[in-house]
């Protein structure tokens, strides 16, 4: 019999980024005994890296803004594959969630009138992102962290959850985790479990994600029998660093373009003017003069009367345009595009508005962005797909299992707008915490089944006794290179099919890696366990990408280069597990009711 410690909670939240912390705060406020289990130290989760801001129609910087415009922008950016109800809730509630953060200590940049300032971002009609320079994520995570530790929430730092516990009718009843520091095993009985584990982008070798982004929550849900949707939609952020190689993929905030930065190719052309898809025709400036005038007005604090620069098109559009410039031989020295703000704004303004970008390029690339252009290129940044949830409650298709933030799906459709992630976390984190807690009222504490827990523990300990296998780091690197090459920004039927075969091979290799026998902070052991999730989730993504024979948002097929106006324009890919195998089916997408449909402008062709 293996040794483990047991814990009993009303609500267990897995993950301590923005969504997890917000969920835990709300669950505790509802009176639930709440715990957070997180892989890293508190305050280090991926939310900390968010730069640009949180989108909320406060109307402080432009009073023409309101929830209806935010809803419309979100649906359009998502190419109309969004869950309309989530998009509506998000647009309506994000402003209150941002105001609440301010009362919990967040100090956002101010307007001249002393209110929360808002900046422009791709796909948002009006300046909408509440921000703190270019480190908004740090501000939000620190604020929620400080609120959370004073809300009576227990925090299990540096613990990884490996299994969900379920009763006979599949209702979620808790989870099994190991302490990364000493290797000790823990079983949690919980009346509700909230997944807030973030994303999957470590599955690609060029990515902006931290080591934690191995798709744990996606895999936990899948293995528990929950459904995943939209897994083919992966956002390749257009501007990651490209040089030097060791920093390739690190995010360069969209805020650079929001503050007036322009994209140029090796011939000095602002190529975004030639890359406006039909659905956005007429929305953006058509001459450099108009674009420059927009920047001038925005910098002067005036209400913009001309159209915004095409650099502020949605991320999928800009990423594909950069990719095309490079492919056609007009890339920058190291295979990207030039992003130039030095010629648009003064050095003082750049340092005030984009301090961490200035620091990052100076320290890591030896580039002074107040004097010279940055080299940027696409980097795997965000997964739109994830656990299928109820729009109101965030409950998954498994009773008692909730999901919020990047691990959940629906809000963003085929492509997420910048700034809609931080707001997603606080809007749906709150809802998940609230409904997960309400569900526990009057409920008996679930019993922990020792046999199930011991089987899970045995599986967790198994890699420690392997000998002479591959270094898990080697398998990890090769898996990521494969996904980058075959399931990257531009996909083909042939590549995706070989990726599926490759993944079968990786699945085998993962079972025989040798991380060494130590249980004390053994990074190799942790990686050996994370790899199982990475293979499953890479498989789910590849399968969905293979099935969708069109190009839309964060899914681009070289062999089907345009959006389908037929079936795929209103169809969702649904992934679940049938025994050990990952299966896919298609489902008709629910359309918005008439009063919301009227807010959309679908007349223009989709892209």
């Amino acid at each position: 019999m293996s040794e483990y410690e047991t814990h009993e909670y009303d609500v267990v939240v897995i993950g301590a980024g923005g969504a997890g912390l917000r969920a835990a705060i709300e669950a505790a406020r509802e009176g639930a005994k709440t715990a957070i289990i997180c892989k890293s130290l508190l305050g280090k989760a991926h939310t900390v890296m968010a730069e640009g801001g949180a989108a909320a129609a406060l109307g402080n910087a432009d009073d023409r803004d309101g929830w209806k415009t935010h809803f419309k922008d979100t649906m359009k950016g998502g190419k109309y594959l969004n869950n309309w109800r989530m998009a509506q809730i998000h647009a309506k509630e994000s402003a209150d969630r941002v105001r609440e953060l301010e009362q919990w200590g967040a100090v956002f940049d101010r307007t001249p009138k002393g209110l929360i300032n808002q900046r422009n971002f791709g796909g948002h009609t009006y300046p909408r992102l509440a921000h703190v320079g270019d480190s908004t994520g740090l501000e939000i995570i620190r604020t929620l962290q400080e609120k959370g530790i004073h809300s009576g929430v227990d925090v299990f730092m540096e613990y990884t959850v490996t299994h969900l516990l379920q009763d006979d009718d599949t209702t979620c009843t808790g989870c099994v985790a190991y302490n990364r520091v000493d290797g000790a095993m823990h079983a949690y009985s919980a009346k509700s479990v909230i997944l807030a584990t973030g994303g999957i982008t470590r599955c690609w070798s060029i990515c902006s994600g931290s080591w934690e982004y191995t798709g744990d929550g996606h895999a936990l849900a899948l293995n528990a029998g929950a459904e995943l949707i939209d897994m083919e939609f992966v956002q390749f952020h257009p501007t990651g660093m490209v040089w030097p190689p060791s920093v390739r993929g690190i995010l360069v905030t969209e805020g650079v373009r929001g503050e007036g930065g322009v994209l140029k190719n090796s011939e000095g052309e602002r190529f975004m003017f030639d890359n406006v898809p039909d659905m956005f025709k007429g929305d953006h400036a058509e001459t450099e003069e108009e674009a420059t005038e927009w920047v001038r007005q925005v910098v002067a604090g005036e209400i913009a009367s001309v159209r915004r620069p095409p650099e502020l098109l949605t991320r999928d559009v800009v990423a594909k345009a950069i990719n095309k410039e490079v492919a056609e031989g007009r890339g920058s020295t190291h295979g990207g595009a030039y992003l130039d703000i030095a010629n648009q704004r003064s050095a003082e303004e750049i340092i005030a508005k984009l301090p961490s970008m200035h620091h990052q390029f100076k320290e890591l690339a030896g580039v002074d962005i107040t004097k010279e252009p940055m080299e940027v290129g696409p980097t795997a940044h965000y997964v739109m797909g994830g656990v299928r949830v109820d729009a109101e409650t965030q409950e998954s298709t498994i009773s008692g299992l909730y999901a919020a933030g990047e691990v959940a799906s629906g809000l963003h459709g085929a492509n997420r707008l910048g700034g809609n992630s931080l707001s997603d976390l606080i809007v749906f984190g709150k809802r998940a915490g609230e409904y997960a807690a309400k569900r526990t009222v009057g409920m008996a504490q679930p019993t922990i089944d020792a046999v199930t827990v011991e089987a899970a523990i045995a599986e967790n300990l198994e890699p420690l006794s392997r000998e002479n296998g591959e270094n898990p780091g080697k398998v990890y690197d090769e898996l990521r290179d494969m996904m980058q090459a075959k399931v990257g920004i531009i996909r083909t039927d042939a590549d995706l099919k070989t990726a599926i075969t490759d993944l079968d091979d990786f699945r085998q290799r993962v079972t025989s890696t040798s991380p060494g026998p130590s249980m004390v902070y053994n990074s190799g052991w942790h990686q050996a366990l994370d790899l199982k999730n990475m293979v499953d989730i890479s498989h789910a993504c590849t399968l969905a990408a293979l099935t969708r024979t069109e190009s839309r948002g964060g899914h681009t097929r070289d062999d089907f280069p345009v959006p389908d106006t037929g079936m795929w324009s209103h169809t969702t890919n649904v992934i679940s597990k049938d025994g050990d195998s990952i299966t896919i089916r298609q489902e008709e997408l629910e359309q918005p009711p008439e009063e919301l449909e009227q807010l959309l402008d679908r007349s223009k062709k989709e892209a």
Partner: protein
Amino acid sequence: MTEIKMKVFRGEEGEGELVDYELELDEGMVLLDTIHRIQHEQDADLSCRWNCKAGKCGSCSAEINGKPRLMCMTRMSDVIEETPEDEVITVRPLKAFPHVKDLVSDVSWNYEMAKAVVPIKGPEEPDWEFTQFEASRAQEFRMCIECFICQDTCHVLREYRKFDEFGGPRTMVRLANFEMHPMDQEDRIPEVKNEFGISYCNITKCCTDVCPAGINITDNAIIPLKERVVDRYYDPIKRIWRTLTRQNVRY
């Protein structure tokens, strides 16, 4: 491609030694890349913390050639340049805190300190109004990434081990953040003096020198807090005035 040698501390709970590694270096590598390369090519069980790899999360603090800094923001070209030719680059865990394994220290004390600070308390009504000028003062302190390099450097903690009496520079930055927040109504001055022991700081500015977020810890956080403590406790005229005007102030 360059071949380099470096020594990394390996061991558990303080017991251990510097272990030699040889590896290839690519252009632009930072120190954290070399640790990852050792993990992936030589020793899978080498322990280190990291997350963002961009200087934003403060996870990967270590002592490189004896100086605490972020491994992700330390370029190998700079480390090679600073290391004398007859010496080898060394990487050790933060020394001020209990050792766990390899490059990982137990920093949980800092989280206890965070919990001991009374959080912000402002007006109940939303849409607070204050200027960017007022915001900027608190925002400087909010740039802290909690790498705990300042704590590791502060001799009151590192050498004199005053963990029970002194909160350290990170805690002072947190206190300053709340105390200088334009809308905060809480009073933490007695705690600044007593529980967090601000008088232990003799303003040597070591913390400011090492802060990777560039926070002017000593001048902008600690000294103004010291001044508030002096005003409250050691200015007899102000004290008499407060008594005469019946101001309800805690001591």
